[in-house]
């Protein structure tokens, strides 16, 4: 069985933001403009959190890319009254846009605040719309959306392997954030395959989950950074 997962090495990440833009480009994420951004309605499936530790002049900064953790025990799922969000057999926490009725219960229950509501339909003034990825649906107003682990890329990788009569091999499938990261901080793969890079990296002494004590069983693993590790 496959369980898609991701390992993010925070010692490699510099917070450059390339993954954030890559995610927008790949997943047809709308930009909402200054006014709505000020209202807290900007939609970044992937964000870089910046944390300060200490006081000036001995202040340390840590960057943390945060995206949907694709939880094994996802708090967002049981609260959806219409089963619009569910767990796929391959461990993805999926959204069915056409089922979503916009109660926003899921966003309310997500401890990682990685779910975003479409308060308005996106606008792509011509010819910006020519960039839209044909493999990803453009979401209408009133539905929730979030990181999908680039499910369209997973699908494409699996189709390609099938066409070539072979199994998907480790490294075949890369999410958009992972592919463009200049620092190679993000690795994607199958956590159930003990040979995969993510499975190997997950064993690191530097590995941890976000808010592990909540028992959400995330599929994203963070490797701690800094000199002490």
């Amino acid at each position: 069985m496959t369980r898609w997962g991701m390992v993010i090495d925070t010692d490699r990440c510099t917070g450059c933001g390339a993954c954030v833009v890559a995610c927008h480009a790949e997943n047809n994420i709308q930009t909402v403009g200054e006014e709505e951004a000020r209202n807290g309605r900007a939609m970044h499936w992937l964000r870089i959190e910046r944390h300060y530790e200490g006081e000036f002049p001995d202040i340390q900064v840590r960057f943390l890319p945060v995206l949907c953790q694709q939880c094994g025990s996802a708090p967002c799922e049981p609260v959806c009254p219409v089963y619009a969000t569910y767990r796929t057999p391959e461990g993805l926490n999926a959204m069915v846009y056409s089922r979503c009725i916009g109660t926003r219960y899921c966003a309310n229950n997500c401890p990682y605040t990685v779910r975003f509501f479409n308060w308005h339909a996106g606008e792509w003034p011509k010819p910006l719309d020519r960039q839209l990825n044909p493999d990803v649906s453009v979401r209408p107003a009133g539905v929730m959306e979030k990181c999908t682990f680039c499910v369209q890329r997973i699908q494409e990788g699996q189709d390609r392997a099938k066409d070539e009569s072979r199994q998907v091999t480790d490294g075949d499938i890369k999410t958009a954030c992972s592919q463009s990261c200049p620092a190679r901080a993000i690795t994607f793969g199958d956590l159930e395959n003990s040979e995969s890079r993510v499975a190997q990296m997950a064993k690191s002494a530097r590995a941890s989950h976000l808010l592990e004590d909540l028992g959400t069983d995330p599929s994203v693993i963070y490797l701690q950074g800094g000199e002490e590790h």
Partner: protein
Amino acid sequence: MQPAVRPGVLAGESVWYPSVCTQCPEGCGIQVRIVDGNAKKIEGNPTHSTNQGGVCALGHSALQELYNPDRILDPQKRIGNRGDGEFEALSWERAQSEVAVLMKSVSPENMAFIGSEEPGLVGGLLRRLSDSLGAPSPVFLEPPEYRVERRASALSLGIESIPYFDVARSDYVLSIGSPLLDRWHNPVHYTHAVAEMRRGRPGRRGKLTQVEARMSLTSANADEWLPIVPGTEGIFARAIAGILLSQDLVKDLGRRQYERLFPAPPPSLGGAAEECGLLPERIEKIAHEIAAAEHRVVVAGGSAAGHTNGLFNTVAGLGLNLLLENLGEPGGVFAPATFDLGRHLSPSGSVQTPMADLAARVRGESGEPIELLLVVEADPLHELPAGWGLASGFSDIANIVVLSSFFDDTTYQADLVLPLNTGLERFNAIEPASPTGIPVLGIAESVVEPLGSGQHPGDVLLAVAQSMGEDISAAFPWSSFEGLVRSLINEDLGNLPGSRNIDASSYYRDALARGGIFETGDPSLTPPGPSGEGPSREQARFDGEEALFPFLLIPFASIKAGHGRGANRPWLQELPDPMSTIMWSSWVEISPSDASEIGVADGDWLRLQSPNGLLEVQAVIDPAVRPGLVGIPLGNGHQDYGRYARGRGSNPMNLVGNLLVDGTNEPAWASTRVRIERIRPGELARFGKSYEQRGEGENIPVGWAPHETDQGGEQ
């Protein structure tokens, strides 16, 4: 109109084509996903030695440059008053004949040319054009610290270009002012290098120490940050040298080379530490750490080069490499490697005119008056200090012709606009402006059909030259920019890698299929060493008295808009700044203590005044800001530049005056003092929480690892 699908590609089929990124002058290798003739996504070219598969935020946004709704698609002629922004379209034929008439009627000494990137082939063509006409040499717009860094590199290392720092193989990187991971030279390359330095060698983690007054993205990522008093970076470097020399931590060769550069004894540690605002023990610790590291390198430049004593700061920083004997050593400093095809276009030794000289001409203070100004893909009005008086000088220039894809601040003042196609619509041939240790020439065909009638700047310049009569046109025998590149490659074929036993046209075809000509391997060129004595130690001078203007302004290039180019892309405007998490606007970073002293709350609108100008901008209270210092990102504050940039935010260069870096003709952009006055409350568009909003016990950022969130918990 749906563009044509390439032959052999099915409707709806997705194909990746190699290309070269044109968003900054470093020319990373990219690949572009095309479906039904439309560009969908950009990824890095994993075989390219510069970026090794990575792409930065600005690089991704090239798609929103291509499909920007506010592009200039046809030639434009001004119809209203200059600066009113009223233009009408005209045909290329008419536009070109108007340019030809101007070029013939204005005598060459009254012409002025501004280009964007110096070493590029387009820059070479522009230089060749001015040479053939007998006009003053073109000036090239680039971040001014780059020229200070080059001059410093020539003095300290004996190379006339930006050195290559082998960060990836280093165990200790001491960076003095240089924002390696921000928009400085090649952020994609150096981001990868820093990551490799830390985690690319199992069991061996290198350390990055950043000595910089401002908390830049690089300072934020450093293992240790020394927030030095701005303008004392050179003294810090000299103090490090003093420790290395006096405690016998270096060998004789290094000592001899260093003493050629700085014959005078270094300053005392105690005095230097006090000037730098650092503890002497801390400076000593850094000196011992770097002396103990097997592979070590000192990087210098950035804001250290933007003070009036920037040349001294940078020479003193780079000079430490001599002491450490790391020239040409793994993890040390190398001379950049280049094929330098541009040398065939303009004779070597062409005089490089500093931008300050052109500005003096524009203001009518020196040199021949300008009757025709030709600007090629550059926005000097946006990027240069307002104190240089370019804006008012422009109104006295009879004819301004601009080659551009957008109505940026300079194009807005043009009389005639010749539209350029954008990077993905053109044939590209780019050598990086600041090459790494491995030579690269990115070459790629256009990956989409052009949206308008815009042309490649090289093709426009060729057409201009060829309209000038036989004397001039004979020096431009090529039918197109691509033809020119092919002939340069043919001429140089023997020197290019992998060219043995292959004919020129197959070689060229293979290069296009790969996205360029590049090697793999390690850098190998050793810098020769100091070319003379370094500048003597000087104190930094500042524009504005401290009593009247108590804050020092540091403008910085953010990963969002860079120096201005990214401001018209919604993705980049809405990308939260990694430090402040601000979207869609400019801001001024201010320390909590300064904010409380002048009664400023987060988001408040402030009026900043320097001896040169006024600016209104919102406050971000940031605990990592050095008290007495304020930072404002570059890139916003355009007059037009399309719907996403128009009137948005403010441009800190409007506050910067005309102080120059001593020993150079480059602006000292980090030397302006300002005073701050609160105007009214306001609210920023921010993705994260503000520092101010986090009270005691709420200091728990969303989603941080468990051991970090335990504070105030039940233990």
